[in-house]
């Protein structure tokens, strides 16, 4: 070990002692190892993937049987192969978001955070690493899930008005958008967990933001609604993977920008609290 000592990097340690050093890449590796060494990670990621694929296939089958029997649920009337395959996104975002909260808030509830921050007392590398590691994992799981769901879902509905395949305009963009959305939900989960330092608090705020706020906004006067509604995290996120957009929703690019803005805001809040408060 000591033969690796570069003259400019000689630590104040006694000769013969190994040279250790914290680096951003090493913190990333550590967070990667931490994520996979917990059983809850495997279970929750498995659930997320299952939700995506199973609900996508169930929705496609229901559509197909609806068409076959001649009487169609109103909800399904305007469906496409893409929207049917993405039916599970709503549930998968909960699984991935909650796991994101657990990745950070779980360290506070168990006390692990003291070991973590004693090893990396500059603190911020821990937040960036957790967000990056889990964001990438959620992105991969999400993208894999929606592509598998579409691959089989599109076969189920082939020959119906909803039929589409990968060559159809916007399909691949839409599926990639959904994967990216799920990855960013994971990042928002880690940020909320770190910001609130509580598993229950993090999950509550996550669910409220993604599911309750859109409902509450509908109580506002409609002129306000049109101004506010497209920019809400859930609606901006949805426009990232919607196949079409109209006057009341953002374009996929704008939706991505707005959703990235919300993610950055959550991360900034988390970073501020991490640096400012004792643990």
């Amino acid at each position: 070990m000591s033969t690796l000592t570069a003259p400019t990097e000689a630590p104040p340690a006694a000769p013969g002692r190994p040279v250790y050093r914290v680096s951003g890449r090493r913190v990333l590796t550590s967070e990667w190892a931490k994520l996979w060494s917990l059983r809850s990670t495997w279970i929750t990621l498995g659930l997320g993937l299952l939700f995506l694929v199973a609900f996508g296939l169930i929705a496609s089958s229901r559509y197909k049987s609806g068409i076959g029997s001649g009487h169609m649920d109103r909800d399904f009337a305007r469906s496409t192969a893409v929207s049917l395959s993405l039916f599970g996104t709503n549930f998968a975002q909960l699984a991935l978001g909650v796991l994101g909260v657990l990745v950070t808030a779980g360290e506070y509830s168990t006390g692990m955070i003291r070991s973590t921050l004693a090893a990396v007392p500059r603190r911020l590398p821990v937040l960036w690493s957790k967000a990056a590691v889990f964001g990438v994992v959620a992105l991969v799981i999400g993208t894999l899930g929606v592509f598998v769901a579409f691959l089989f879902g599109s076969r189920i509905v082939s020959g119906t008005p909803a039929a589409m395949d990968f060559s159809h305009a916007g399909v691949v963009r839409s599926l990639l958008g959904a994967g990216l959305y799920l990855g960013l939900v994971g990042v928002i989960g880690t940020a909320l967990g770190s910001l609130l330092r509580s598993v229950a608090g993090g999950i509550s705020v996550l669910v409220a933001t993604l599911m309750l706020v859109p409902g509450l906004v509908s109580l506002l006067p409609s002129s306000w609604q049109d101004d506010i509604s497209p920019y809400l995290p859930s609606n901006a996120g949805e426009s990232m993977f919607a196949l079409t957009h109209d006057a009341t929703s953002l374009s996929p690019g704008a939706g991505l920008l707005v959703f990235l803005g919300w993610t950055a805001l959550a991360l900034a809040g988390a970073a501020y609290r991490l640096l400012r408060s004792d643990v």
Partner: protein
Amino acid sequence: MIEARQLTKRYGDKTAVDGLDFTVKPGTVTGFLGPNGAGKSTTMRMIVGLDAPTSGSVTVNGHHYARHRAPLQEVGALLEAKSIHPGRSAYNHLRALALTHGIPRRRVDDVIELAGLGSVAKKRAGAFSLGMGQRLGIAAALLGDPQTVMLDEPVNGLDPEGVLWIRNLLTSLAEDGRTVFVSSHLMSEMALVADHLIIVGRGRLLADTTVRDLVREAGGDTVHVATEDPARLRDVLAGPGVDVTGRIGSEELQVTGVSAREIGLKAAEHGIALFELSTRQVSLEQAFMDLTKDAVEYHGSTTGSDTVDSLEQTA
């Protein structure tokens, strides 16, 4: 080397640590003593940067803890509160910490062996007994081969074998030239391992001393003498470092700085008759109680004299 300068921590209007000044030097075991709630754990958390001081500062080897390139190599800390994820195995816990510093896998195996965790290393840490958890915490503290080892109440929950293991470990770490800083609320435990003592109460420094000085200041090992001719015995015993007290007209003297054996020899040499000659040892526990009695945060409902007496006998 740990240096605290006017270190202060307030939580709202409660002052947990109040202007502490102390230095912990390498090569010896320094005990950090104080009653419950004296601010020991808060001080230790500030040393490793988990809590930020309200004012003042504390440095490790000349720098703030967070400024070091390899913090785990500077200070290895066992904190009082649990600092592990119960769902992770001991091995994976240590491995994750090691990865942040580029500490090789071999070192992880070494500290697992050193802490006697070999047989349970792959089990979930949540299933560990208190003693096993404590051993895992100590393994984590030693992971980076640190210059300074800081342990908060390390013997909590350990069986007698574990307590002995800790004592030997602390002594050998100090012999290596490392700085060893150990907190406890038990004087009797500290007296066995520590050379230097930093005693706090209600967040304030009460004493920064050695075990020997503490005993001496608290009255030391006093020899009680009753003699036929106290005035002559005083003259005979007089010398540097010797202190003789006694009421005028009384046959009894209290002598410090000379052993009972020497007093007997000198008295015989000068032909002074002695009626009584006995050594009275002040226990460290008593010295500690005297120092901290005004600073005890939570008094029990009974007076402490019974326990003091029993401790004195065992000391």
